[in-house]
């Protein structure tokens, strides 16, 4: 059973290049970040001193309210974007999954894949343009009772940027999940007297809950890891942890502090994945029982 057609030696040769690359330029840089985060920062010198004793001062500094604010902003704005993206991508995904019109489907998919492929820079610049003074930013801010350069409006720009970034991914993934739900279940519910809306909400949606959870996690982690979107659309008023890490490198040259931020971000993202994996397992077990 366990035998494979290719010999063990061949497999080793095939794995070789990839393993080499992963160990040298993926695992070792990450471990260097972790190591750096425990080094002492010496102001004035670039980087940290090599033979200084290990310290957790870089992490202690992160508990200052100013730093915590960056973490909270990152989490809050990513979470809002995730929810908005989920709410608005589901109906589109549903239609593309169920339509009988080949033209609508191929057209919709082309637009989605196009938007997936279009550089995030193009999106960011475009949104900065339309949210700017010559675009709709002024009108929109007046509608929301604010002014164009307020922090609130910049937050909205960042949310718009994140949503447009994750929307195609969310829609395509949800579409795949909806396609694999037997359409007859919904029809059966309707023929038994449920309204179409109720049939979708009570039959199709629960069957897709695992996909919805995993899409949500993907959107959230993409949001937390986003760099360009808050950098340009936040206009310096809204910054994510990623932007803070970059300024530790480009402006302050405080590498140990940047490394501590990076390590915390990495641990945070991994935690989200572990929790998501666990809850997805609970969901599937419950699904199997039902």
């Amino acid at each position, binding site marked *: 059973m366990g035998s*494979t*057609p*290719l010999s063990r030696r*061949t*497999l080793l040769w*095939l*794995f070789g*290049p990839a393993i080499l*690359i*992963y160990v040298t*330029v*993926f695992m070792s*840089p*990450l471990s260097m*970040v972790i190591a750096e985060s425990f080094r002492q920062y010496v102001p004035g010198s670039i980087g940290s001193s090599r033979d200084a004793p290990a310290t957790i001062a870089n992490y202690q500094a992160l508990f200052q309210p100013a730093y915590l604010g960056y973490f909270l902003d990152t989490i809050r704005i990513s979470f809002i974007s995730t929810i908005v993206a989920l709410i*608005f*991508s589901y*109906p*589109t995904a549903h*239609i593309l999954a169920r339509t*009988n019109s*080949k033209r609508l489907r191929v057209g919709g998919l*082309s*637009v989605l894949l196009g*938007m997936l*492929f*279009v550089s995030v*820079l*193009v*999106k960011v610049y*475009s*949104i900065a*343009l339309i949210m700017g003074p*010559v*675009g709709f930013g002024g009108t929109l801010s007046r509608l929301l009772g604010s002014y164009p350069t307020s922090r609130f409006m910049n937050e909205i720009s960042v949310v*718009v940027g994140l*949503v*447009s970034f994750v929307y*195609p991914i969310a829609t395509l993934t949800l579409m795949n999940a*909806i*396609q*694999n739900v*037997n359409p007859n279940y919904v029809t059966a519910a309707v023929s038994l007297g449920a*309204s*179409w*809306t*109720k049939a979708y909400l009570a039959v199709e949606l629960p069957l897709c809950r695992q996909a919805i959870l995993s899409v949500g996690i993907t959107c959230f982690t993409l949001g937390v*890891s986003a*760099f*360009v979107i808050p*950098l340009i659309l936040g206009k310096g008023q809204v910054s994510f942890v*990623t932007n803070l890490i*970059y300024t530790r*490198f480009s402006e302050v040259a405080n*590498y140990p502090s940047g490394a501590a931020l*990076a*390590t915390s*971000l*990495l641990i945070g993202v991994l935690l989200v*994945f572990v929790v998501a994996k666990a809850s997805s397992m609970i969901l599937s077990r419950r699904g199997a029982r039902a």
Partner: protein
Amino acid sequence: MKRYLDNTNWLILIVSLSLFGAVVILPVLITIVSSFDSRRFVGSFPPEDLSLRWYREFFFSSYYMRGLYYSVLIATLTAILSSAIGFLAAVAISYSPRRVSGTASSLFLAPLIVPGVVLGFGLLFFFSKIGISWSFWKILIAHVIITLPYTIRTSLAGIHGVRQSMIESALSLGATDFRVIRQILLPIAGSSVATGALFAFSFSMDDVAVTIFLTGTDVYTLPIAMISNMKSDFNLSIAAASTFIVLMTLVMLFILEMLVGIDRVVGRGIYRQDVSR
């Protein structure tokens, strides 16, 4: 009540589609139109007069063109290297014992989870430690690692379609392992490998978060040039650059459609196999 609920269904649909339009498509369209604006400043939309001045600005700027040159060069090399290494790794994963393949594939997909900035920051330490100082190598190596998960994934999907019996009969007739890979697996999985290469090219063209830590004054990519212009002087030459990128994207989508067909990239799902045939 039922009727009312069904109407809300349509309402939700219309709202979600118009949000999609407003957030995802409209801004890009406005950028494309604005790139033809003849005014010297970013004026109100729509432009009063059209011209190609911003394109002249873009194509005659040595700053942009240097970025474009390195972007295309690095993206091409990344696509080749990443799809080659990814294909080999995918073959190994497909024909390894369960336990090995499970561990390997989760290791290989790990860069997807790690935020780009964290990896970029780490690579900064790494390259200074091992003494690589020319940014070209730094960026190329970084782009190979961030695109490998995608090329491995697409190759895996292609190899999945190869019947086990074919390989076994070739081997039993005396073909070597590498002949099987070259003459059976590569031709059958070819379009998937090419799709992966295309993904790698486009992600390499697009990356900022990792690349921004590795650029030098002489070697940088187009996205980095655009970012620094966006921060210093928000003018419409970036709109021209964006339109150029959108055009490149369309060409790439066209190639993808030719290679495998967009419908097949996404898949129809198990209940709708018949419709597309």
